[in-house]
């Protein structure tokens, strides 16, 4: 019996250790680099949204979706010289094989790629990588993700790039 418990505990710990987001390696490398901007939001912050009151059913859906998020990490740099190089580097450091490409958007001044990771039939991570002439950004949103709601939030908060997700439906994926 004891062996089972120990094995079970080990499994849980190991799962916890591997349930890292894509951006962790990249983050560890550049976290202390002052030329990068970064934002980290914890699950505690998202959890607070469950206590908020919603004015409309649409808002209620959004609040519920937010409360299921476990974290958000953003790393960005505004520098003409290194942006494109960083974009390429991101794809070497991020375990892209574990992710499925959802969408790629190319505009005059930047390339944007969206990836998702599925665990147990649900989307557990949304990854956005942007490389432009002057800007580089990588964003990882993880937890239990509802793409439709994330797109709505992106639109409401005017987060450039996320509005493209509204064109996606949970069922559509690039193969």
């Amino acid at each position, binding site marked *: 019996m004891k062996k089972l418990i120990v094995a079970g505990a080990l499994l849980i710990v190991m799962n916890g250790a591997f349930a890292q987001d894509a951006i962790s390696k990249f983050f560890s490398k550049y976290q202390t680099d002052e030329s990068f901007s*970064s934002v*980290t939001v914890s699950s*505690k912050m998202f959890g607070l*949204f469950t206590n908020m009151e919603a004015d409309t059913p649409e808002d209620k859906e959004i609040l519920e979706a937010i409360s299921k998020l476990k974290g958000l990490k953003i790393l960005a740099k505004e520098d003409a010289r290194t942006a494109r190089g960083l974009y390429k580097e991101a794809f070497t450091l991020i375990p892209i094989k574990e992710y499925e490409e959802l969408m790629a958007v190319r505009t005059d001044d930047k390339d944007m790629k969206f990836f998702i990771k599925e665990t147990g039939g649900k989307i557990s991570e949304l990854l956005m990588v942007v490389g432009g002439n002057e800007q580089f950004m990588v964003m990882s949103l993880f937890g239990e993700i509802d793409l439709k709601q994330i797109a709505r939030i992106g639109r409401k908060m005017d987060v450039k790039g996320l509005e493209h997700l509204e064109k996606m439906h949970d069922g559509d994926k690039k193969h």
Partner: protein
Amino acid sequence: MKYSILALLIAVALSGQAQSKTTEKLHKKYSEALSLFFYNNTLRMINQTDDKEFDELIKDIEKMKFLMIKKEEFGTDDYKKLISDYKSESFEEMMTSRHDGKNFDVYMKEGNSKGMIVAVNDSENLYVLDIVGSIPLNKVTTLFKEIDESTEIGKRIQEFAKHEH
């Protein structure tokens, strides 16, 4: 007269929660630092323009303390220790960010004694805002904007105070 003293005593007695120990320790250590202290009523008094949004923001703030410490006396290791002290007081990390050489970290404590710590760190100063009480989530961005502006004001007050003496 008697009633107003009584009212004041009751108000003080009811405002049970104290500022965080870590903040108090910090203030004691850097007693020369600029420090501002506000009770809920003081905050309401500041709201001269009857700004409804500001009222909403401060309504659950019991009291708050603002400290501004010069970086020459306070290093990275001191900052790390400060954060771990707050964490041992059950403050949990909500958000950390860095942009343009400025660090902006938010910690929060739930439960019986609600509190929030906002620590802003730039090349010259460390600013700590210790709030006893809570802030409605949708007002948090307003607060952050105010703090950003107030760090400018904090610097100006300090310079003004220097001239006075």
